[in-house]
């Protein structure tokens, strides 16, 4: 199977005003299907940039980055958008659409990828049941707790059967008790449903929940360790 992510000497330089900032200075990373990798690093280490690149939200300045076997630097905006439909993004701040109910939020990602109404309705309900929110289907984000919102976001990310879930500080904005519930859900998805997961975080304890941890510092991956169960 094609690796879901394959980065070779990836560089990314931003212009901060007139000053070039080297956010990534040659990153190598390979993530296989079924893996659960955490990318760990302090702020300023380049992990957010890495997240944007793996999420096909941005393109590298140099190097090769294959997402699901596709070199993203060769894609135009439309093709990048298409690629993003195969990636399940979960954000630190949930990023649900406030005016839509839990179900409509989950349905939204499916309606973006042209799924029919009846089918996406059914799947949204199934997914919300999977993440344990069957009784919160018609609630809007404001009526849900942080943990519940994050579970809606995970359901939304799973809706299009993505090649992998991309988590950005998934527990960064929820209390520790609900955080452990969310982590349990993520691990369950990885183990039982064989969902590949890439998680970006600055939290060492959280990073250790993954099968592997890639430690970033100053725009490079300085170490990769396999975590003990």
């Amino acid at each position, binding site marked *: 199977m094609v690796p879901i992510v394959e980065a070779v000497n990836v560089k990314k330089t931003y212009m901060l005003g007139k000053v070039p900032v080297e956010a990534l200075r040659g990153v190598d990373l390979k993530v296989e299907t079924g893996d659960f990798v955490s990318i760990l690093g302090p702020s300023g280490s380049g992990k957010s940039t890495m997240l*944007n690149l793996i*999420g096909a*939200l*941005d393109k590298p300045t140099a190097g090769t980055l294959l997402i699901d076997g596709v070199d993203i630097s060769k894609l135009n*905006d*439309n093709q990048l*958008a*298409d*690629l*993003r*439909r195969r990636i399940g*993004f979960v*954000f630190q701040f949930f*990023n649900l*659409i406030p*005016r*839509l109910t839990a179900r409509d939020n989950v349905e*939204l*990602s499916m*309606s*973006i*990828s*042209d799924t029919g109404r009846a089918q996406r309705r059914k799947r949204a309900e199934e997914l919300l049941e999977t993440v344990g929110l069957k009784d919160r289907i018609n609630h809007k984000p404001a009526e849900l707790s942080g943990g519940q919102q994050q579970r809606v976001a995970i359901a*939304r990310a799973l809706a*299009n059967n993505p090649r992998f879930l991309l988590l950005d500080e998934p527990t960064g904005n929820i209390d520790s008790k609900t955080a452990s519930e969310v982590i349990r859900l993520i691990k369950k998805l990885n183990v039982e449903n064989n969902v590949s997961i890439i998680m970006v975080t600055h939290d060492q304890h959280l990073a250790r929940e993954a099968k592997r941890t890639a430690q970033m510092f100053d725009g490079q991956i300085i170490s990769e360790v396999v975590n003990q169960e």
Partner: protein
Amino acid sequence: MKTIDIFGYAFSAIKLRKLRAALTILGVVIGIAAIVALLSITQGLQASITNQLQQGLSTNTLIVTPGVSALGQATSGSGGGAGGRGINLGGSSTSNSGFNLYVNYTDQINALSPDIEGSFAVIQRSGYVEAGGVNRSVTIYGVDFNQYAKQYSKTFVAASGTIPLNPADSETVVGTRVNNPGQNGTLLFSAGDNIGIVWSNATTLPVVNETYTAQVSAVLQKIGGFGIGGPSDTGVYIPLSKAESFFGTDQCDMIIVQLKSSDNATITNVSKAITDYFGGQVSVISSTAVLSLLSTVFSTVQLFLGGIAAISLLVAGIGIMNIMIVSLIERTREIGILKALGMKSRTVLTIFLGESVIIGLIGAVIGIVLGWILASVTARVLASGAFGGGGFRITPLLTPEVVLGALAFGVGVSVIFALYPAWRASKLKPVEALRYE
């Protein structure tokens, strides 16, 4: 993303900010309502004037007047257009060029073309009648009662009394507003009564008021509106021979020519024959020319009024643009989310344009209904005579063209002004949009 889903999403965004959406829509409503109201009133006015003209001016009739007028030129096809003189139809004016029409020219006109059925002269003066101690301004027409009644068989009809076909010089026929000015049943006089007919003779100084007493043989039935050359509600009709002696002239103000056919070729040929015969010193007006001039005038008026109303819609458009830009800024993060979920730029564009289409459509529909109500109310106020003049009846016309045009214009303006904000929304970079607080 499917079109229905795009519109559903756009609608959910509008619903979220109801007051803001309502105010934006209100702008469109006002613009469209103004356009629809103005257009349906002017179109109704045009229809009612055209209708009344057609009643007063049969299509197989030409009116020959001395002098050159815009209409005459248009009819005779000699070019030039509006010479700034307008329609020379009334009063005791003689032509500027010194050319005059005479009563006995009818014989010569009759001989000009086999298409001419006959012709008769009209002498016309402003004057007034004295009856029951009241002076009432009227137009005095000297006509051949027999020919006039034949030509205007629908309007030169007695409501009371009888129109004498071979009248004595002292007989007269009057329009209904002459003896019943308020149209409220208070009669100044009735058929059979004597009235004084007065004409201020200003051909020599000092001005002399010439008066004679006439017997009213008949009062005409209500004609309404106005007819060029035809009978009018404020007209006083006296025999042509009496007019010649009373006004001291055998010059006439118009000669009405009846044609055997009303087709355009006949009208054009006879008009040209008459114009040529009098060396271009007369205007020949046909009903078709009057109607086409009228239609030109009304088109201009409509364009002008519609243009003014359109400005208010333009203001609404700027409002839409303003609100869309605010909305775009507020929803920057949302757009980032949508793009991160795989939405394409053109779908973002379509969502924003979809919102403007919904706003424009709702605004246009409400505007059309409101405009129609406004026009109906205005017409009713005019008809009730609240602004004097005894009331003028207009039935506002709402043609399918106006409805469709208003819809298209409302939606079009909304979409055009939404283009820029929509384009900006679609161009947002997902990374930056997601970072936006």
